[in-house]
Every structure is written in C-alpha cells, then in structure tokens.
C-alpha cells in the first residue's frame, strides 16, 4: 500500500517536472526578449545572464519610436488598418459565397464548389509572381488596395462558412422571405447572426494571420511609409545587429497586440484550431 502510494507520488512529481520544463523551454525566449528589451546598450551583452536588468531603461523602446527612415508608430497603424481590412474582405466575401452555395443553389453550383475546393491545392508559392504582375498591370503595386484584394480568393473560408451554414434550418429564412424581407436583409440580419460562433472564429484567425503575414506585404508595399510592422521589424534585424535591446523592444511591441487578442479569446482560437484554420 505504502509503496504504491510512493510510486503514485513519484509519478506525479515526474509529470509536473516534465510539464514545467516544457513550459520553461517555451517561455525562456520570451523572457529573454523581455529582459533584453529593458536593458541599455552596454548591459545586453553580459556573462552570466542577468535576467533582471541592473539599471532598467526604456532606451530600447524610445529608439524604436525614433528610428531614422521608418516610423514604428506609422507601421503599427498600417498593420492594424490592413489587418482589419483584409479580415473584413476575407470573411464577408467567404460568408456571402457560402450563403449562395448552401441556401441558393443553382444549376452547376455543385461543380463550382468543387472548383473552389480544387483551388485550395494551388500553393501561394506558384501564384505569388503572377499576382505581383497582375497588380502591376492594374497599377495597384505599392497600394493598400493591391495588398487587400487577393484576400478575396479565400476558398478555405468559403468551405468553413458553408459547413456552418448547412446546419441552419431553411424554414426560419423562408418565413422571413415570405414576410417580404429581401435576400440581403435575410443574409445580414438572420444568417450572419446565426453563424456568429464560426464567424467569430474566422475573424480571429484571419486577423492574426493578416497581422503576422510577411512575404506579401514585403513584395507589394515598397514605400517606407506604407510598410507594415512585420516588414519594418524584419528590416530592423539587419540594421540593428549590435543593438539587440532595440530589436527586442520592437519584437515585444509586435507580439503584444496578438497576444492580447489571443488571451482574450483563447477558447475561440482553440475552436479554430479544431477546424484546422490557423498556421
């Protein structure tokens, strides 16, 4: 009896040890980032590591906001604006298309939906160069419109919304139509609120995806005043090689908004992972 108990507790100890070790490995780079960001330029390179800065300073953060050539504040605003716009475009266009596929099928709509599914196999790697050239032809390079427009091509979003709208019963929508409501009104005031949980998850995933995206903004937006936070931070990495406190301050400020959004909505995000949405 005693031995069994001992074994039980030993097992539990080993488990918690492993758990804490994993959490520590995950968190250490973040703590290192945070600690470095509050150090002065002489204090970042120390052996051994000083986790708590001896003379904490906001120098890194001040320098981030007073860079020569780029404005971090402007880049933050650009990122926020573009993330909101891309999210709105992605989610709304997907929901509208899904509404047609589930509730207003027409001749050939099944085949069209299969085509949507097939496009999910086309990698962005292949479409990247032609998309750039299409924007060039349309005169939309280095514009926000050009950056946002490709968000319309969102077959995966249509697929997710369709899954969710299939569960809505027709009778509710039919009675609203018989009462004289237009299809647009039915869509915006009945269908969208009824799929609110999926909508919320999709909005979240789309927002985090747009905020974090790098390659497309890097290619499309060339004027410094239009660039996003990720592109500016990426450029800083080369320019501030020996000023890691400035880089870490920039990284903290880039991660923070998404982290806050995630912590406020962990459940929704977890639901999104179950849908296979975030990567």
């Amino acid at each position, binding site marked *: 009896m005693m031995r069994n108990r001992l074994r039980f507790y030993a097992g539990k100890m080993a488990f918690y040890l492993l758990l804490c070790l994993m959490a520590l490995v995950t968190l250490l780079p973040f703590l290192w*980032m945070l600690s470095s960001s509050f150090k002065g330029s002489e204090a970042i390179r120390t052996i051994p590591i000083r986790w708590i800065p001896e003379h904490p300073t906001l120098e890194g953060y001040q320098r981030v906001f007073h860079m020569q050539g780029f404005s971090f504040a402007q880049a933050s605003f650009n990122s926020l604006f573009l993330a909101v716009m891309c999210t709105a475009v992605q989610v709304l266009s997907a929901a509208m298309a899904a509404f047609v596929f589930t509730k207003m099928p027409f001749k050939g709509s099944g085949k069209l939906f299969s085509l949507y599914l097939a496009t999910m196999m086309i990698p962005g790697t292949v479409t990247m*160069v032609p998309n750039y050239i299409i924007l060039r032809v349309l005169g939309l390079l280095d514009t926000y419109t050009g950056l946002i427009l490709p968000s319309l091509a969102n077959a995966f979003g249509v697929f997710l919304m369709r899954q969710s709208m299939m569960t809505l019963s027709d009778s509710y929508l039919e009675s609203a139509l018989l009462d004289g409501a237009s299809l647009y009104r039915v869509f915006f005031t009945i269908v969208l609120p009824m799929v609110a949980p999926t909508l919320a998850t999709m909005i979240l995933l789309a927002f985090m995806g747009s905020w974090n995206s790098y390659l497309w903004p890097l290619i499309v937006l060339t004027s410094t005043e239009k660039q996003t936070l990720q592109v500016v931070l990426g450029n800083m990495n080369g320019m501030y090689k020996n000023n890691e406190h400035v880089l870490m301050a920039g990284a903290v400020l880039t991660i923070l908004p998404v982290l806050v959004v995630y912590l406020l909505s962990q459940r929704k995000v977890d639901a999104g992972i179950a849908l296979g949405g975030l990567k």
Partner: protein
Amino acid sequence: MYLPKSTGRRTATAVFLAPSLIGLVVFCLVPMISSLVFSFLNYDLLAGSMDFIGLKNFTRILTGSEFPKVLSHTFTYLGLYLPLILITSVAEALVLNHAFKGRGFFRGVFYTPVITSWVAAAVVWTWVLSGKYGLLNQLLQTVGITGPSWLNSQQWAMPGVVIAAIWKDTGYYALMVLAALKSIDPAYYEAASIDGAGSVRKFFGITLPLLSPTLFLLIVINVIYGLQVFDSVLIMTDGGPGGATTVFLERIYKYAFKQYKMGMASAYSWILFIMIFVMTTVQFWLQKKWVNYDA
C-alpha cells in the same frame, strides 16, 4: 430553400457570389495558368523583355550548380525538422492529455509561440542563437558545452533555423495530436492493464498505432510546409552564410523580386510545386504500409 419569385434571386446570387468568384479567378486561377506560361519565357521585368525560350529556364535550373545545394539544404531542414516535430508534439500532447490543475494555462503557454509572427520569432531567435552572448550558448556553457556561433556558421545555421521552427510549431501540432489522443477509446487501455501491460507497452502497442493516421497527416502537412520554408530563413540567415541556407522559396523570392527574372522564378515555383505533388502522392501510396485505420 424555397424562394418567392419576387426576391430577385438572380441578381442576389450574382451579388453574393461575385466578390469571392472574381477573387478566385483573378488571384488564383489566372495566376496558376500565367505562371506556367511565364516559366517558358525569358521574362525580365526591368528590361521589359518577354521571349519564348521553351524549357530553357527549367534546364538552366536543373543543371545549374545551385539546384543541388538548394535541394540538399531543403532536405537537411526536413530531415532534422520532421523527426523532432513528431517527438516534441507527441510528448507535449501526452502531457496535456493528463487531467491536472491549470491545464488551460499551460495550453495557453504552449500556444504562444504559434500566434507569434515568424518575423518577431526570427528576430528573437537570431539573438537567442547569437554566438557568445546568446541565450542558448550561455545555457549550454553552464553544462560545459561551448556552442557554435549558430547562424554565422555554414554547418550550424540550418540546425539553428530548425530549433527555432520546432519551438514555434510544437504547440500547434501538439493540439492536433491531443485531439487524436482524446478520441482513443479508454477500453483499450483498460483491457491492456488487465493483461498486465505497463505504460511503455501501452504507448507502443496502443497509442502509437492509433495515432498513426494523425502522424501521417502531420508528416504530409509538414513536408508541404517544409519545402516552402521562407520567413525564418529570410530573416535569420537570408540564405547565408555563404549560401549555406538557400532554399526554394528564398530562391524564388530573390529571382523574382531582387533580379526581376520572372520566368526563372516561375519555373522554380513549378519545380517546387511538382516536388510537393510527387512527395505527397508517394506518401499517400506508402501509407498503406504503416498507417492504421482500424480503430
């Protein structure tokens, strides 16, 4: 759904479908075809020239001295990344599968690297992997190991990128494995316990075979993503040092947007696409040999 005649069904269908359909055609289908066309052209965006050269882009890439290096770097990345990500994500999922206090908290902790942008993660990891003062080498020093100057070393730059990628991705795949673990019928374990099986035997005899469909999916997805590794490489090493970490998407990016050779870039992207397609098909073909769909 029944629609009264007066509802303007045709117009509404067009209005609802247009944004998404136009987007799909203009930014997905047309580009797919034009990319194939470009790959047969000597298409220089700066000079504005566009000449048909047949398969020359492809032969130039495939017979050049650069391509074997790109292949070898990409497969080094995959060869290190795949086994490691399988081990770490299964381990993390096994831990999370226990019932314990504060599980939501730990799940959140494990997921923070996933929601972090690759740019921020790469900036932080460049500093973590820094030669003398970096976090990793200082930790290694405490156990008596003198670490390499990771990203500045031709030999260690790619392993450095892989370490960062494992840190970033484990939380994501662990949740996928966790979902699969939760769907395993506990009756299997009870029966095994009655037969006197220990936890190690249970893991290899029950858990692992029943996880095989998920592990298969994980490998397929990661081969697809791994062949297209980009953000981390561009920021952490920019293909260097001395071209030691050049990979497919990095090459495509450089050809297209540094040299404006759109034909070369398109041909490169088609070679990549064909490789992805072949490797995925081969895996689906091989899965019969090891994936267990019985449960």
